[in-house]
C-alpha cells in the first residue's frame, strides 16, 4: 500500500508530461491565449482557498482564508474573461478573411 503522497507524486509526473505534450505543438499565434488559458486553469486554487477558509477557526486564519478566496476568484474570472476576449478576436479575424 503506497502512501497518499507517493500516489500524488506519480500523478504529478504524469500530469507534467501531459502538459508538455499538449503544449508542445502550439503555434506562436496562440501563445498569448495559451498562456492566458493556463493562467485561468491554475485558478483551481480557488477550490483550495475555499477549503482553507472553510476549515479556518481563528480570526487570522479566517482573514487570510478570505483574502485567498477573493484572490482565487479574481484569478478565475479575470483569467477566463481575458482568454475569452483574445480568442474572440481570432474568431473575428478568421471570419473577415477576404475572398480567396
Amino acid at each position, binding site marked *: 500500500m503506497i502512501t497518499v503522497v507517493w500516489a500524488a507524486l506519480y500523478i504529478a509526473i504524469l500530469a*507534467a508530461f501531459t502538459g508538455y505534450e499538449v503544449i508542445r505543438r502550439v503555434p506562436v499565434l496562440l501563445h*498569448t491565449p*495559451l498562456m492566458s488559458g*493556463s493562467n485561468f486553469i491554475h485558478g483551481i486554487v480557488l477550490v483550495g482557498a475555499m477549503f482553507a477558509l*472553510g476549515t479556518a477557526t481563528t480570526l487570522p486564519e479566517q482573514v487570510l482564508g478570505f483574502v*485567498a478566496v477573493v484572490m*482565487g476568484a479574481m484569478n478565475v*474570472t479575470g483569467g477566463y474573461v481575458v482568454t475569452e476576449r483574445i480568442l474572440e*478576436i481570432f474568431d473575428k479575424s478568421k471570419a473577415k478573411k477576404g475572398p480567396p
Partner: protein
Amino acid sequence: MTDLSDVIEGVYLLTVLFFILGLQRMSSPSTARSGIVAAGVAMLIATVVTFLTPGLSNLVWIAAGIAIGGALGFVAAKRVAMTDMPQMVAIYNGMGGGAAAGIAVVELLIGPRFSTTGGLSVAGGLIGAVSFSGSVIAFLKLQGWMRQRPLTYPLQQPTNLIVLGAAIVLGALTVAYSGAFLLPFFLLALGFGLLMTLPIGGADMPVVISLYNALTGIAVAMDGFALGNYAMVVAGTLVGAAGSLLTLVMARAMNRSISNVLFSAFGATEETGVAVQGTMKPIEPDDVAMMLAYAQKVIIAPGYGMAVAQAQHKVKELMDQLEARGVTVKFGIHPVAGRMPGHMNVLLAESGVPYDRLFDREEVNPEFPTADVVLVIGANDVVNPAARRAGSPLQGMPILDVDLAKNVVILKRGQGKGFAGVENELFYKENARILYGDAQETVGKVIQALKQIKD
C-alpha cells in the same frame, strides 16, 4: 468515506479531464474557443460542488469572497483595452500566486506543521508568495506606474540570494520549531519576489510573465499535495509544465538562457565605443506612400512601439489600401516582439488582419531579399543586425533579416536606442530611411498620401 465525498471526487476527476482536453483544443485556432469554454464550465462545476464538502464552515464568507473577487476580476478584465492585456495576465497570475500563498499560511497555522504536509505548505507558500509579489512588480512596470528599465544597485544578486536563503531557513524553522517564524518567512518570500523582478526590464517581460505563470502552477500543485486535493495537483502541474516550456521557448527566441534573463539586468548598461558608419536618413510620408504604391511585395515588422502608439488599426487600413492596389502584404512577427508571448499576433488580429498574413521569424526570413519595402513599426532590437556581430550585447539573438530587403522604412518616435541600449546599425544602412513621429499619425499620413496616388 461518505457517498457525497465520492461524488465530489468524481466531479474533480472530470474537471481535470476537461482541463486537459481544453488545453489540447487550445493548440489550434479553430478549436481554441471551445477549449476555454470547456475548461470554464468544468471550473464552475468544481467550485459549486466544493460547497457540498462535508464539514466546511464559514460558507457565507466563502460565497462573499467569491462574489467580491469574481466581480472585481470580471469587470477589470472586460474593461481593459487590448493593448493592456500583458499586465492583466500578469496581475491575474499574481492573484493566483497570492491565493496559493494564503492557503499555505492558513494550513501552517491550522497545523500540524512538523509533517510532510507542513513542508509542502512551506514550499507552496514560498513559491506562491514569490509569484505574487513578482507579478505585481511586473504589472506595475507594464502599466507604466514604474520605470520599465531595470533597477540596479551594488551587490544586487548577492543580496537577493541572501534574502532567498533566509526565507528558506525561516521556512524550515517554521516546520521544525515554531509558528513564530511564519510571519518573517512569509515577508521575506514576498520580498524576494519583489527584489528579483526589479532588475528585469520591459523587453524581457514575455519570459517573466510566462515564468511566474509556471511558478503559480507549481505552487498550486504543492498546496494540492498538502490539502490532498488531486485536482489541484494535476491542474497545477499541467500549468507548471506548460508554463516552463513556454518560458524556454521565449528565452530561446532571444538566444539567452533563463538565468541570463533573470539575473543579468539586461539593458541596464549601454554599449559604448562602437562607432556606426553612415547617417540616419529621414523620409516623408508622401515618399513612403510612393514607394509602397509601386511595390510588388511589402513586409511589415511590428514591435512594442506599435502597441504603444495603438497603431494596429491604421496598419490594417494600410494593408487594405495596398492590397486593393494589388500589392502583396505580409507580416513578419518576431517571437519576443512586444511584452508577452504572441503580443503582436493578438493586436493585429484585433484590428482585423487575417492570421494567414502573419508569419513567424523562420517563415518570413527567406522572403526579405525579394521584398521591395519593409516597414519596421516600433520594433528595434529584434531587427538589429548587430546581433550578427561578435561582441555586441545582442550577439546571437535570432533577428528578422529586414536589412536584406530593397528598401527599409523604420517608423520611430525619436532618436532613442532600443531596449537593449545598443545602437541599431540598421538605421544607418544605405537602404534604410527613418519616418519620424507617432506611428498612428505617420501611418495615417501615409494612407492619406496613398489615396492621392492614381494608378
